[in-house]
């Protein structure tokens, strides 16, 4: 039976991880996401499903523990917030390079540096363009409700294993801290891994398996990269998710993701009340980015305003998608500040409708 609860985003993520049959969580405390590990520790998943929960000595240790568990074909997850995610960049690059499946959540706070613990979306570039070294991509999911936190935790594991690729859930202080009604899916069983790429103990008579991101020879490393690039093209073809609100008749388009899309939706409602034909396109996957959706609507609208809790990041992907077909502007608040619907409407009027 599905279950209805009022939960914080962070707790919902933890509960969803247990229910999806995750094998291991490794993490280190940092505001505003410490509730994830706290919830797990309090809920004794080791008794419920046998899931392992370990507080690591650092974010770096945590991501490398994830590497180890993922290399065994196990479902492993870690969560952190911005500074902690920066520390995981080498590890993420290794995981991407070794083609291991895992889930990482970033409950983004305002940067740069120690910054503030207030919500932000200023890690978009880091997640989407590759914060670590080398040509790799994370699949990036951007939930905008506690329900989506739950759904995407499940989806994240599915995609991670489907493509043997790390999946990032990009949440933020708002989504992590707020409580909403959620419908929880039923407990799924943990499964014993039996993948030929995983180190599960050598099979008698077969050569041993190894997990690595190293190729001494450039020729070989290029092959790895070609394989990765082919995989990314597949992902771009198959896994794009987005939502459109009132786009049918839209003359102007708002674009926003995550918590900010909720606020932007309110701004859209205000704009509609004022008589503007405004739609909202919300990417649910930041990578793969809904390039075609933006490209298509670019022929229809007079301009696009991206609304972000950062100084202008997703706006670049929107511009790349529409490739000059329509005007694309950005409105943002940042450093932990949250835009309000009125100022969004105002920016829309200034930069797009009037501009």
């Amino acid at each position, binding site marked *: 039976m599905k279950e*209805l609860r*009022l939960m914080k985003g962070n707790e919902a993520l933890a509960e969803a991880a247990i229910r999806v049959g995750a094998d291991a969580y490794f993490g280190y405390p940092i*505001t*505003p996401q410490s509730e994830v590990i706290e919830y797990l520790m309090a809920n004794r998943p080791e008794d419920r499903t046998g899931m392992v929960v370990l507080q690591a000595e650092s974010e770096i240790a945590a991501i490398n523990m994830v590497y180890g568990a993922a290399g065994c074909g196990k479902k492993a997850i870690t969560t952190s917030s911005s500074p902690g995610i920066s520390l995981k960049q080498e590890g993420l690059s290794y995981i991407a390079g070794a083609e291991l499946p895992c889930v990482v959540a970033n409950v983004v706070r305002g940067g740069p540096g120690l910054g503030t*613990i*207030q919500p932000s979306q200023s890690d978009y570039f880091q997640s989407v363009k590759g914060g670590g070294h080398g040509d790799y991509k994370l699949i990036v999911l951007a939930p905008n409700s506690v329900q989506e936190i739950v759904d995407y935790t499940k989806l994240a594991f599915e995609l991670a294993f489907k493509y043997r690729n790390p999946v990032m859930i990009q949440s933020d*202080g*708002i989504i992590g*801290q*707020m*409580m*909403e*009604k959620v419908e929880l899916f039923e407990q799924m069983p943990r499964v014993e891994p039996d993948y030929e790429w995983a180190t599960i103990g050598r099979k008698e008579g077969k050569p041993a398996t190894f997990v690595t991101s190293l190729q001494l020879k450039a020729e070989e490393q290029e092959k790895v990269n070609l394989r990765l690039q082919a995989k990314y093209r597949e992902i771009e073809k198959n896994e794009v998710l987005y939502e459109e609100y009132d786009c049918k008749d839209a003359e102007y388009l708002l674009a926003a993701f995550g*918590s900010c899309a*909720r*606020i932007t*939706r*309110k701004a859209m*409602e205000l704009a509609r009340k004022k008589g503007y034909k405004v739609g909202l396109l919300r990417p649910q996957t930041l990578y793969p980015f809904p390039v075609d959706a933006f490209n298509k609507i670019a022929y229809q609208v007079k301009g696009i305003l991206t609304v972000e809790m950062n100084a202008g990041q997703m706006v670049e992907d929107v511009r790349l998608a529409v490739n000059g077909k329509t005007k694309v502007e950005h409105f943002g608040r940042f450093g932990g500040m*949250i835009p*309000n*619907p*009125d100022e969004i409407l105002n920016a829309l009027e200034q930069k797009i409708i009037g501009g």
Partner: protein
Amino acid sequence: MTEEIIIAGFGGQGVLSMGQILCYSGVMQNKEVSWMPSYGPEMRGGTANCTAIISDEAISSPVLNTYDTAIVLNQPSMDKFEDAVKPGGLLIYERNGMTRKPRRTDINIYAIDAYEASVKMNNTKVFNMIVIGGFLKIRPIIEMDNVVKGLQKVLPERYHHLIPLNEEAIRKGMEIITVEHKLN
């Protein structure tokens, strides 16, 4: 129906759980709800607040700048949120510890001596339930039955024996809230 509420006071006054109880009660009454706390180190010893939204429709933004109702339990919170009440909205404040009265004239204003009442009940822990009672008197958006069901969800099993006491506190709040300024 959509009610957008800010509840603010000192850390330790039970501000966050008031919002949670209201939201869980809302869920019991088949409403859409959203609860969003202020968080961070300032909370400690300092001030705390949370936004609670209870609505018949899907809730867009969980973060608000103006509110239908502000429940303020100390002076810094009054200073911060009095102006954020929408015209025609509701302000409820706890009199204890306030150094000034609200100044707005375009909103409905109620006061409640919840601290005093809780002392009289010999249990300052029910302070916040008294305030909830006061609020529900003025905005009867949730039925008592559902508040009790909400409490059952919020409180760990081992505290369920305290639910009758909490119910009593809610009723007490409904009794003692007094109008200070009412729009016609």
